[in-house]
């Protein structure tokens, strides 16, 4: 039986997609991402990771806009922040979203981590992704620390002076860390530019790269079912010992004979 030729619309849509697919394989990658199977019992708690990513994207976008108007110079930084907040059209919204988005991002990182901990989702084979997640948490907190100085107001200034001094109490590494963060022996004009470069280039770049790796591993390894699910995906744990009247309802699944008993 001859197949009907595809409609004109279908050909118009498909042509560029096929063109890209033939030269990159990206369309197949996106299809795999979208249509890959996830356990049937994923729930709202599984959205915390993507919610954290959303908060980070908000930070990246608002941060890029702020960088267009902010001046990382001790003489003018404070004034440029005042101008962004009070004068520029919607500047208050961009700065407000960046300022509060930071708190939301950090709360979501902790909640996401709590979810993974509670579900035992850090266990084999996802150990490496847990470690990457911890690194992301540390880098996220470091973004909070470096960003706090940038408005160059009293709160940010003195909190940063003390934070740098606290790093200085570390054994052996202390003086080196202080020098690295200050951009010299003492807190000076270089410190602000240094924090600015760390805050908007180096650390976000590292966060982007690690998020990419984190997501790659999530897609490759799959997400785990809630451990208390009636029928969690796979058999991540030994079956309960068989009772006299047969296995308990809800814990026996088709395919159980293939599973390992321990």
């Amino acid at each position, binding site marked *: 039986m001859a197949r009907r030729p595809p409609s004109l619309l279908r050909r118009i849509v498909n042509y560029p997609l096929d063109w890209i697919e033939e030269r990159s394989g990206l369309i197949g990658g996106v299809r795999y991402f979208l249509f*890959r*199977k*996830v356990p*049937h019992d*994923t*729930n709202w708690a*599984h*959205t915390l990771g*993507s*919610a954290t990513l*959303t908060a980070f994207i908000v930070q990246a976008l608002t941060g890029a806009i702020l960088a267009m108007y902010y001046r990382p110079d001790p003489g003018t930084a*404070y004034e440029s*922040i*005042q101008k962004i*907040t*009070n004068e520029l059209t919607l500047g*208050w919204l961009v700065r*407000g*979203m960046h300022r*509060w988005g930071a*708190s*939301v991002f950090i709360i*979501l990182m902790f909640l996401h981590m709590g979810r993974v*901990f509670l579900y*035992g*989702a850090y*266990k*084999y*084979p*996802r150990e490496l992704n847990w*470690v990457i997640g*911890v690194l992301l948490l540390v880098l996220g907190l470091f973004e*909070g620390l470096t960003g706090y100085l940038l408005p*160059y*107001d*009293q*709160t940010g*200034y*003195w*909190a940063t*002076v*003390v934070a740098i*001094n*606290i790093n200085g*109490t570390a*054994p052996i590494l202390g003086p080196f860390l202080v020098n690295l963060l200050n951009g010299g022996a003492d807190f000076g004009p270089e410190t602000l530019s240094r924090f600015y470069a760390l805050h908007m280039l180096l650390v976000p770049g590292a966060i982007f790269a690690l998020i990419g790796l984190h997501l790659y591993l999530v897609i490759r390894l*799959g997400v*785990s079912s809630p*451990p208390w699910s009636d*029928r969690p*995906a*796979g*058999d*991540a*744990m*030994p079956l309960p010992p068989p009772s006299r009247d047969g296995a308990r309802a809800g814990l026996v699944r088709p*395919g159980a004979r293939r*599973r*390992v008993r*321990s």
Partner: protein
Amino acid sequence: MARVDERRQAYASYKEDVQRRGKPFYPYAMFHDTVMSVVVVAVIVALACIWYFDSNEEPGEEGAGILGPRYTEKADPGTISFIPRPDWYFFFLFYLLRIFKWPESVILATIGVPTILLILLISLPFLDRRRERRPLRRPVAVVAGVLVMISMGVLTYKGGTVREALGATAAEIDTWFQRNNLPEEARPGAEFFAETCTQCHTYLGSGSANLGAPDLSAVGATGRNVEAFIQIMREGPGAMPSFATQPEENLRAIAVFLEASKGPGGG
């Protein structure tokens, strides 16, 4: 069977099970993700709006709304009476500095506890290698996790509501002179000290123990001379900021006062 093979098989059966009984990410999981992301953005916008419309252009307390001011005063390295406060998510570390005192154990608060927590956090999947995932069957992990969460919550709360020093009053300064038997030449230094240093240091019950700053009621009994105290204020040991930009005579006055402070009954 070796544990390694066992968990490999368990994971293979997970993969197979997801293929057989799972649902496609799009549209099912993606729908939840999208709704959650919209909520997140809405919350961020709402916080920005509340913060902005409830505050005004004035810096600090005067312009503060329910979510705080838009900014505090412009940074001034010459100030000596500003209490450094981090953003709320560092309050738990901030409060640790009140628990571990300078100089003996402050390193535990600045470096020790955070480093140990971080190492434990990173090594969690290597310490807890059983396949069991149900929380009720992982009592050690769950109890430890809950304890860490509770203590971080409590420390954050305490760091956020900690009593701020308001500087010592004139009456308190008079008490210091009586109880510590201070000579009259220590008076100007005592006044500077009451205004500024008590933001972090305590002295005969006045002031606020911020950032691990030690009590200075009897610091004169440590045998340091005036020059040594000036040197400390200039350098700012540990978490203490350097006050090298302050006029020499102010530092000297404070140093005279500290040198005379030998504690109640001393001197």
